[in-house]
């Protein structure tokens, strides 16, 4: 196994695990504001590591640029939607989670 392949497998697994950690954060964090944090980290770093791994064995520069473009677009999109959610949540005065409070005390909003 060459050094390149080892690096690539490390990046791939790390990226996928980053996505997992992001989803885990989305499940474990107590309120809307903290969950935004989990969302954007997973998008940026998870997809970024996977794209880096894939770039290592592309055959043309154009393909590498396309992969980087996809990464950049996802990054902007997730940052933007995170910002929009935070902005609107602030506008509507959604309360922050107090210490000791778990999310179970919140009733579902849309039922």
């Amino acid at each position, binding site marked *: 196994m060459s050094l390149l392949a080892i690096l690539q497998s490390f990046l791939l697994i790390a990226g996928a695990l980053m*996505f997992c950690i992001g989803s885990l954060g989305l499940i474990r964090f107590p309120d809307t504001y903290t969950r935004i944090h989990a969302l954007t980290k997973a998008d940026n770093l998870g997809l970024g590591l996977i794209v880096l791994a894939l770039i290592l064995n592309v055959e043309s520069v154009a393909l590498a640029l396309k992969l980087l473009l996809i990464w950049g677009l996802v990054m902007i999109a997730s940052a933007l939607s*995170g910002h929009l959610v935070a902005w609107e949540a602030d506008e*509507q005065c959604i309360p922050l989670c107090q210490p000791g409070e778990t999310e179970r005390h919140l*009733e579902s*909003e849309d039922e």
Partner: protein
Amino acid sequence: MNSLYSVTLVILLISLLMGVFRIWRGPRMADRIMAAQLTGSTGVAVLLIFAELQNQPAARDTALVLALLAMLVAIAFVGRVWGFSQEKKDS
């Protein structure tokens, strides 16, 4: 190499399932939208892996389209659904 891609895929699919759980659980609509955004990005990653695994270059184009349109749902939600339901609550 292929088995490595498969392992990555399995981890990504697990992450996707966790996103589905958050959409199911809520509790706020904003949490559901954020979970949908995360599953969208996971979908982009899965498509990129598929492109390598199946030697299907067009999967990258699909990922590009998905990346471009992923935020549409969030914008529509913030602009339409959320404000609307708040209005209803106030009245």
